[in-house]
């Protein structure tokens, strides 16, 4: 006879917050509520009202001690509790003689079902917030606090539940360790965001029924929240695998964190500059400029999406100046409007193109809308005057195909600069470079008189491989490390080195630690990446030895 309790069981799920945890499973929520005797409708109405007010008060207190993100989540719950509309059906049921707790639960269940039925994953995830409110008020109606009693959950436990509410998450002291394993849940839920922010490992969508999980309370388990697997009663082999994976993850995370503020250097001492990709100025507010060597790509589309396609010059100048101020003398590359393709802007881009990726996008659109283009060039030249003397301010043109387009754009820039000078408006001429993403430009790169080059690997790969970025079925063909792409990268880098101009790479490949060695061996010395990738990319750079042949 096999001992059922010790049989190893692997349950697959989806990762929601990376990390590893080993510990006892805590299957919750459990704990029966005390029975409550219902009074007359007036008493029930008063009881529900008091419970709702107390719940809102408790959440406001919790929000006070929470971080900005957590406070934002609790804010919605408080707003809901303060809204009389939420409890209206419950009060109506109470008038019909239904006890407060049943009336409240039924009203919230209807509301929750509305969210669960949504097609949008983000709205579906809000069902958990409603659950949280439901449970908290019910707990108060029953005379309890609604929060987990202290000591009920063992330190370092892996919570196994259908879902967990944000307020339960926040009420728990995660400093003692622990992890979350959910049979329901979603990677886009508030709890998942909180878990990622706090570094709590979390897996959602585990393939197990409530009946199955019920028998697992306090069973030993290991959770791999990178692969999404929960192993209950792990055998010696599973435990050894887990420990090795957890150790190597902890080591790489530790190494990466140590690299965040350091200048990036390869093992052989070659300095690599790591720049940031910025989608909008708000991205920078929480970032320390010392983690990067500058900004390699400011996407300016956000300005045009927000202002209905036509941001005025002053708005643009203010926004560009804010970014330059943050950079504090570090180089900043602004990309002119890159609309079209998968980034339509109503009123600006061309509607109804049969193949927008091969249509009027990037510089092609700017040359078609010279008024919009000239205004942006003027705003960039004016903002550049605010940068400290000697700080590099660069202007990059997207989707350039032929050298004549660069010549055309340069003539327009020169014209605007002359106009600013004539009007005695403070300005500075930014360096003018191109984004290398159209194969025709990459292959004939020596025909371009650009002051710098930045390789847009996402589009370059999709055009070289004829594999659309928007089509998962051909994603396997869109490998940025395939020979054709690496040859083109190497050719562009050779040309840049020979002509004494900078070549950088600002696509997703730059932020992928696995791609970094190949990119450096292809000749790149400047990578521009999203802020969360900086530490890992610097760590990956440190492991590369350019003195040794790649592969």
């Amino acid at each position, binding site marked *: 006879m096999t001992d059922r309790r010790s049989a190893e069981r692997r349950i697959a799920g989806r990762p929601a917050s990376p990390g590893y945890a080993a510990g006892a499973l805590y299957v919750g929520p459990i704990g029966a509520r005390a029975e409550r005797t219902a009074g007359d409708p007036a008493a029930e109405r008063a009881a529900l009202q008091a419970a709702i007010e107390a719940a809102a008060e408790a959440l406001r207190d919790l929000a006070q001690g929470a971080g900005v*993100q957590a406070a*934002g*989540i609790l*804010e*919605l719950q408080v*707003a*809901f509790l*303060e*809204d009389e*509309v*939420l409890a209206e059906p419950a009060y109506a049921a109470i008038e019909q003689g239904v006890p407060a707790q049943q009336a409240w639960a039924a009203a919230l269940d209807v*509301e929750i079902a*509305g969210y669960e039925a*949504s097609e*949008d994953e*983000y*709205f579906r995830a*809000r069902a958990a*917030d409603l659950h949280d409110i439901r449970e908290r008020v019910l707990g108060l109606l029953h005379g309890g606090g609604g929060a987990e009693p202290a000591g009920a959950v063992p330190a370092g436990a892996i919570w196994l539940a259908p879902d967990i509410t944000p307020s339960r998450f926040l009420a728990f002291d995660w400093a003692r360790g622990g992890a979350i394993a959910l049979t329901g849940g979603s990677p*886009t839920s*508030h709890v998942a*965001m909180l878990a990622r922010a706090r570094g709590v490992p979390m897996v959602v969508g585990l393939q197990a029924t409530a009946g199955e999980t019920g028998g697992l309370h306090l069973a030993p388990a290991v959770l791999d929240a990178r692969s999404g697997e929960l192993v209950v009663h792990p055998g010696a082999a599973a435990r050894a695998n887990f420990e090795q994976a957890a150790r190597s993850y902890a080591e790489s995370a530790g190494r990466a964190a140590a690299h965040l503020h350091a200048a990036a250097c390869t093992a052989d001492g070659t300095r690599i500059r790591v720049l940031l990709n910025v*989608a*909008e100025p*708000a*991205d920078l*507010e929480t970032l320390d400029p010392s983690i990067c060597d500058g900004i390699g790509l400011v996407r300016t589309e956000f300005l045009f*999406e*927000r*202002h*209905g396609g036509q941001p005025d010059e002053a708005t643009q100048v203010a926004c560009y100046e804010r970014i330059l101020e943050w950079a504090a003398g570090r180089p900043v590359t602004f990309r002119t409007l890159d609309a079209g393709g998968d980034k339509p802007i*109503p009123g600006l881009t061309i509607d109804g193109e049969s193949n927008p990726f091969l249509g009027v996008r990037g510089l092609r659109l700017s040359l078609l809308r010279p008024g919009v283009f000239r205004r942006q060039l003027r705003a960039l030249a004016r903002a550049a005057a605010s940068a400290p003397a000697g700080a590099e301010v660069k202007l990059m043109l997207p989707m350039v195909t032929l050298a004549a387009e660069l010549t055309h754009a340069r003539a327009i820039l020169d014209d605007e600069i002359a106009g600013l000078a004539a009007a005695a408006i403070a300005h500075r001429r930014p360096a003018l470079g191109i984004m290398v993403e159209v194969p025709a430009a990459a292959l004939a790169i020596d025909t371009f008189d650009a002051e710098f080059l930045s390789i847009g690997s996402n589009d370059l790969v999709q055009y070289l491989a004829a594999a659309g970025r928007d089509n998962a079925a051909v994603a396997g063909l869109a490998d940025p490390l395939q020979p054709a792409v690496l040859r083109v990268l190497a050719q562009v880098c050779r040309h840049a080195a020979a002509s004494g101009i900078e070549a950088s790479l600002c696509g997703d490949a730059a932020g992928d630690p696995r791609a970094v060695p190949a990119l450096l061996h292809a000749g790149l010395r400047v990578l521009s990446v999203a802020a969360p990738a900086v530490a890992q990319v610097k760590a990956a750079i440190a492991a590369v030895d350019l003195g040794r042949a790649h592969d």
Partner: protein
Amino acid sequence: MTQAMQAQGSAVLVNEVGLHARPSVKFTQLAKRFAARVEFAFAAGGPWIDAKSPVKVMRAKAPRGTTLHFRAEGPDAAAAVAAMEDLVNRRFDEGEAP
């Protein structure tokens, strides 16, 4: 009898996530600052939704790209509609984390 002031307007939701949790809270908090009745709808002819109720605003589940029509009635109706349009156009003043 004074004729109540009325105002109308519209704006397109251009923030990343549409009228989700935090945008909804800001939306209703702003609407509540005005004495006027403030409502919104997905079509110029309604049906109209109370812009001061977080529960009703979230129930509407307005995704990115939706055009929100506003109407207000009361002494500060014009200011209310202008402020609501401005909040939507400013993308609710936040980064894209929902």
